[in-house]
């Protein structure tokens, strides 16, 4: 129990450190971005000289790098992520509008990928037919050789939803590892012993094989979230889905750094959270098994 607490604390610290480092990094990038020292509000003919001077004074306060970092982090802690240069809207509003679609896409894509990968890898481990193994491995290897953006383009051509493209991007990675993990679990001596004692294949699979491979499969599930988030850029950008991935792509094309760095921090946090959760649950499972 003590070890688990330490593990959770370690992950919490890592998350906090990433948040702080990411915040500092993003503040630096925003500072270094072209146009940081200029303010187009100064061009407003309605402003008098005093107002322009006040704007300049306010900006001059940011010249001190430490004060700038502090105020940036303070604003970020309040949920003020700045304003998008290209779209002219608060980053927070833009993210709030687009997160639900991305979550739906990730959820559906990941679910489909995992259903396909686990079905194929379980049947491959169960049947142990070389022809079945060859066909499924060939299919996953072919998908692995296709760029994610091409799969997104093909989904448009074949008029299938973006979540299918997402599933086909994630599937080959998950299938390959899941197949190997289950294969290794099947070759363990206690499985041979269980089979020799006449246990049914279904019982062997669900009572003796899956529990052995479960912690590693969970770690793979954490990694697959990261893969899916990465795949959301080409899928959303090319399939015309207005999610966070498309927003990141638009921000990159417009060099909208405040928006891009905030998306990057958000994505990093989600990825770390997914990996940490997988690690902690895997740890609990391993403890129960031992």
């Amino acid at each position, binding site marked *: 129990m003590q070890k688990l607490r330490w593990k959770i604390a370690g992950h919490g610290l890592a998350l906090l450190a990433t948040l702080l480092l990411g915040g500092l990094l993003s503040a630096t990038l925003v500072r270094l971005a072209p146009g940081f020292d200029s303010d187009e509000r100064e061009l407003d003919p309605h402003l008098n000289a005093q107002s322009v001077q006040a704007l300049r004074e306010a900006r001059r306060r940011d010249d001190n790098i430490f004060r700038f970092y502090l105020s940036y982090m303070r604003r970020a802690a309040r949920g003020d992520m700045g304003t998008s240069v290209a779209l002219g809207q608060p980053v927070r509003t833009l993210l709030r509008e687009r997160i639900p679609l991305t979550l739906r896409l990730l959820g559906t894509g990941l679910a489909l990928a995992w259903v396909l990968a686990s079905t194929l890898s379980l049947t491959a481990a169960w049947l142990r037919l070389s022809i079945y193994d060859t066909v499924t491995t060939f299919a996953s290897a072919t998908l692995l050789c296709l760029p994610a953006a091409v799969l997104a383009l093909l989904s448009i051509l074949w008029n299938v939803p973006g979540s299918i493209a997402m599933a086909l991007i994630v599937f080959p990675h998950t299938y390959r590892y899941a197949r190997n993990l289950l294969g290794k679990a099947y070759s363990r001596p206690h499985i041979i012993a269980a089979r020799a004692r006449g246990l049914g294949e279904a019982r062997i699979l669900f009572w003796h094989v899956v529990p052995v491979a479960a912690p590693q499969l969970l770690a793979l599930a954490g990694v697959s979230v990261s893969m899916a988030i990465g795949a959301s850029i080409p899928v959303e950008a090319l399939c015309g889905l207005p999610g966070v991935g498309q927003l990141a792509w638009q921000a990159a094309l417009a*060099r909208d750094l405040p928006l891009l760095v905030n998306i990057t921090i958000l994505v990093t946090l989600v990825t770390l959270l997914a990996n940490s959760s997988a690690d902690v649950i895997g740890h609990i499972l391993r403890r129960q098994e031992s």
Partner: protein
Amino acid sequence: MDRIIACAVLALMFAVSAAAPWLAPAGYAKQYREAIDEPPSRTHWLGTDEVGRDRFARVLYGTRISLLLAPAAALFSTLMAAIVGGLAGYAGGAWARIAMAVTDLFMSLPWLFLLITVRALMPLNVPPFLSVLVTFLLLGLLGWTTAARVLCASASSLRSADFVRQARASGIRGRRLFWVHVAPNLKPVLYAQFWISIPVFILSEANLGILGLGVSEPMPSWGSLLKELEGLVSVGAEPWKFVPLVLLVVVVTSFQLLLSRQEELPA
């Protein structure tokens, strides 16, 4: 057998793409204004694109760029991984922890996100040749983290290996111990990481190219050539536009086959 086929395919691709100036002397940028978006013909084997450029020439030159620069980027990233991961693993202690914390920070970000974020920091409107260098240098600069982790673990395990302990007991220390006893034993891991990186970088360049963040026009690369698929109405309508994709799949598969053999080699 698969390894021989993969080597033969890659050698053929390298040879044909290296012969691009002779096979397509007009170059990749020449426009044939009387033949805009033409289907394949005797003069243009793969037809022309929407601005009248010969697609066959563009595929040849694009293949050359992708095939030469992806291994160069892989070499660069492997060297970086060797320096960061190898030395951190060998030094151990706080150095290893700091190096691996930095590596973890990089790895916590999905690869494509990291690529487009860093690419966006650089100017997008750069001359074509510079865009090629920027794209592949970026891949090399950011793609070292996984390899560094593997190398750190290998170097760390070598540190406590019997032969290294014996060398240390014989008075060999510091740089000599690293270069003579540790580094040569990291070679198999380095080779494997180099081969793993090449297909990853080829695919990443293709993704960046399709998203419009890769090599700039008129310079062709597989990524920019695959961007043409965006305008297709159906798969069967203009199948010749799939030639770059077929070449990419063949090359990546060949590298994967070589890699699977590489993994089987004793470390």
